[in-house]
């Protein structure tokens, strides 16, 4: 469900001059391997056949993000948005070029990726908080706030597998937005839950912006990004084709 556009608050981000993320000439190539077996490997070696097709996901991308900025990444499917986000978070490594960061990063590539269905809500909050880089003291201190934000107080000691999908996503999102990273990477997660909850999430994003956090957001919700971001980067086939004013960026994407 896409968020109601009227509910999206105006951006509260105040860009500064301090650089937080530096992406220099990053190139990422994927090899599309069809099978994971030794047999395949041996046979293709014998036949001198090429084992894999390669695919250029990122092609010489340069990008600098400053503290306090909220940068949107837009582009059609397969343009390399998520790959770029994964490269910043450290899940993927560039083949060429390099990425540098300053401060702690929390990457939300997928809501609830670190959640385990057989653990209770409480255990998952701790596990996920720790995965996102919080210490035990930090989680202890924020625990009540996280649970209150997700509005699932009565079910916090129930195994997550019994949660409805909405409850699950709310808890996962709640953990993520309470990790207090310096750099927050968000991939398509602002379409979580019902409308009141979405409004709450956007409110929270606004608070993070006010607090001077740096954000990189990937989304297909162009109107929402236009309001939230201070800058938008348009990617096409792994290359940056536009970097600047949100309204112009969206026009660029739509024109192509």
């Amino acid at each position: 469900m896409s968020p109601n556009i009227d509910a999206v608050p105006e951006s509260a981000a105040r860009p500064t001059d301090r650089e937080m993320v530096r992406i220099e000439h990053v190139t990422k190539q994927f090899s599309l391997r069809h099978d994971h077996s030794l047999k395949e490997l041996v046979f293709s070696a014998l036949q001198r056949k090429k084992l894999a097709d390669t695919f250029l996901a990122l092609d010489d991308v340069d990008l600098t993000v400053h503290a306090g900025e909220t940068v949107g990444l837009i582009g059609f499917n397969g343009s390399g948005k998520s790959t770029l986000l994964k490269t910043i978070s450290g899940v993927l490594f560039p083949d060429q070029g390099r990425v540098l960061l300053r401060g702690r990063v929390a990457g939300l590539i997928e809501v609830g990726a670190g959640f385990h269905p057989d653990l209770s809500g409480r255990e998952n909050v701790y596990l996920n908080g720790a995965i996102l880089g919080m210490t035990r003291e930090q989680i202890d201190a924020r625990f009540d706030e996280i649970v209150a934000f997700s509005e699932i107080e009565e079910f916090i000691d129930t195994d997550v597998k019994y949660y409805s999908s909405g409850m699950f996503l709310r808890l996962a999102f709640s953990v993520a937005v309470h990790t207090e990273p310096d750099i927050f990477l968000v991939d398509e997660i602002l379409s979580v839950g019902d409308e009141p909850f979405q409004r709450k999430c956007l409110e929270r994003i606004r608070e993070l912006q006010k607090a001077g956090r740096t954000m990189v957001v990937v989304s297909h919700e162009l109107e929402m990004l236009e309001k939230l971001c201070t800058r938008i980067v348009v990617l096409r086939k792994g290359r940056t084709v536009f970097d600047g004013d949100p309204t112009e960026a969206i026009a660029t994407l739509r024109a192509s």
Partner: protein
Amino acid sequence: MSEAPRTRAGQLPTRAEQAEGWRAPGQDAGWLNPVTERFLLRLLVRKELRVRYRGSALGMLWSYVKPAVQFITFYIALGVFLQLQRDTPAYAVYLFSGIVVVNLFGEVFGNATRSITGNQALVSKIYLPSQLFPWSSMIVALVHFLPQLLVLIVGALLFGWLPSPTAALAFVLGMAILLIFTMGLGMITAALNAAFRDVENFVDLIVMVATWLSPVLYRVSMVEESIGGTFWFWLYQLNPLTIVVELFHVAFWRYSPEVVERVAVDPSLLSPHEPLGLWWAGLLIAVVTFVIGTVVFERSKRRFAQEL
């Protein structure tokens, strides 16, 4: 596989940049991660323990049941039918102290091998130090090992064995060699298994064979009788598992009164290099394996997310 490997150094911030607070994503403490990330490691261990026995009525009891069945089977087949217990005093203790070693080896090796592929959801979506996965599976294996060790100690006590400094030393050395060696192997196979799933089947094969290729069921002197003096006997003796199993025999079996009595009449009960055997060779092999394992793992961990 992807293109030619690129130098890692070129992607790390220079010293001047580091001074300004820059770092590369995924730049972590390497093999020291399990120490620096203790809290996360503990949570991962707890998760694995919880998940392992979900919906099972016996739960942790299974870690008693499995070795017990194994022990009884071997004891009847080899001890009674093949009459190994006639020449080996306290054969039950002899057998069980070996079984315990091989089980721990199998569990650490097998779990570590599957640790990256088994945590696919985490590895491919969120950054966390991947070294934590094989380490947490080792700790899980240790948790299952404890009850077995307890049973072994009780069994040995029943045969009149008493703890001694030699026993303690042999046990500590044995554990150290076993864990360092198996973690080394496990990190290599975990990294390979991310690329080729065949590896885990191969590992199962090794674990199956391990019981028979170390002196768990029979005595080293029997091996010496048939292939003594050959290259193969040396290889057999240098097998770190052989060394560890012999150390465990020294720790729990060798100094129980029944054995001490019989050694006087039957010197074949003595293992070749009493009392600690080739511990130095075992430790050396273990450390070398661990170093190789760490290097292989560190080099390939950057590709895990895209290979899964």
